[in-house]
């Protein structure tokens, strides 16, 4: 799924005239579909570089809680700081959801090799897919190309839905959709996502907490 999502990144990179090597390297290094879409989409729209960096920084904030929640599962008595930093690099929505589902039932000693095997397969397939997307962009019929560009937004909506557990998650999910059109008008295309995240997330946290307390 993530490989398909990054197919579209290849075509975006080609639109801004970057080489295929940079497009594939962006998958290996950045390893975050939305960040790559913001990067190449932002360049295409002539958004100033610091604004793109800020938007990416904010969109990648999710890796902080995701990685923090994941590492205790992987960590064993012999895990080094370097292994943890390397493991953290591979965190993506697909790798994260699969690992959180599978690792808890595995013996601790098998978790590190399993994780790196699975994560490497994901990242290598995705880099290849980015390259194929780059090469095929002109050859794919229009409606299908539109479909490939839509894989990222559709997939993230569904993964977030699949990962939502508590009321705060659900409220945040809905508020993100509702607040973005308003924020785009009020805050402009640079700060809108930060506003949506902070306002939507904080409201969701407070309301979600209140709902859980009432239930308890």
């Amino acid at each position, binding site marked *: *799924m993530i490989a398909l999502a990054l197919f579209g990144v290849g075509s975006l990179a080609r639109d801004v005239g*970057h080489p295929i090597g*940079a497009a594939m390297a*962006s998958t290996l*290094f950045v390893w*975050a579909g*939305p*960040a790559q879409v*913001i*990067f190449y*989409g932002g360049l295409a729209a002539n958004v100033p*570089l610091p604004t793109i*960096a800020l938007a*990416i*920084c*904010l*969109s*990648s*904030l*999710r*890796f*902080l*809680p995701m990685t923090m*929640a994941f*590492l*205790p599962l992987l960590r064993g008595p012999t895990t080094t*700081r370097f292994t943890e*930093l390397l493991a*953290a*690099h591979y965190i993506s929505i697909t790798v994260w959801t699969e690992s959180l589902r599978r690792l808890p039932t595995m013996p601790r000693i098998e978790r590190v090799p399993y994780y790196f095997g699975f994560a490497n397969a994901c990242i290598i397939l995705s880099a290849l897919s980015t390259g194929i997307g780059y090469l095929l962009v002109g050859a794919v*019929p*229009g*409606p*299908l190309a*539109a479909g490939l*560009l839509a894989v*990222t*937004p*559709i997939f*993230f*909506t*569904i993964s977030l839905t*699949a990962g*939502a557990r508590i009321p*705060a998650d659900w*409220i945040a999910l*809905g508020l*993100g*959709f509702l607040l*973005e059109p308003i924020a*785009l008008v009020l805050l402009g295309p640079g700060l*809108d*996502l930060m506003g949506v*995240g902070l306002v*939507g*997330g904080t409201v*969701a*946290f407070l309301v*979600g*907490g209140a709902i859980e307390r009432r239930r308890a």
Partner: protein
Amino acid sequence: MSDFLLPYVLMIVVAFLPTEMWRSLAVYLSRDLNEGSQIIVWIRAVATALLTGIVAKLMLSPTGELALVPLWGRAGAIAVAFAAFFILRRNVIGAVLTGEAVLISAAYFSGAHFNF
């Protein structure tokens, strides 16, 4: 700077570093925080709202071929995928494929002027 290296340097500075800093920071911060703490719940809610905000933004102001698909097709694809996720008993791949089918059909039948 040479034109050859510029795309790589931009990618590292503008896209890689702002993303990787959160993953690396998490390695240091995760030592003392436990998964169920309220700070994590709040940060996750902020990240979730931000991510669906990105989805809304990609669908409301799309780029490339996606811009040629009418708004009802783009919004409908998300809504149908969401509904399909529950109808198909939480099947992620089935839901995404259903949403994709809606979007590609909308693109195909809307009479948008694609270059074939």
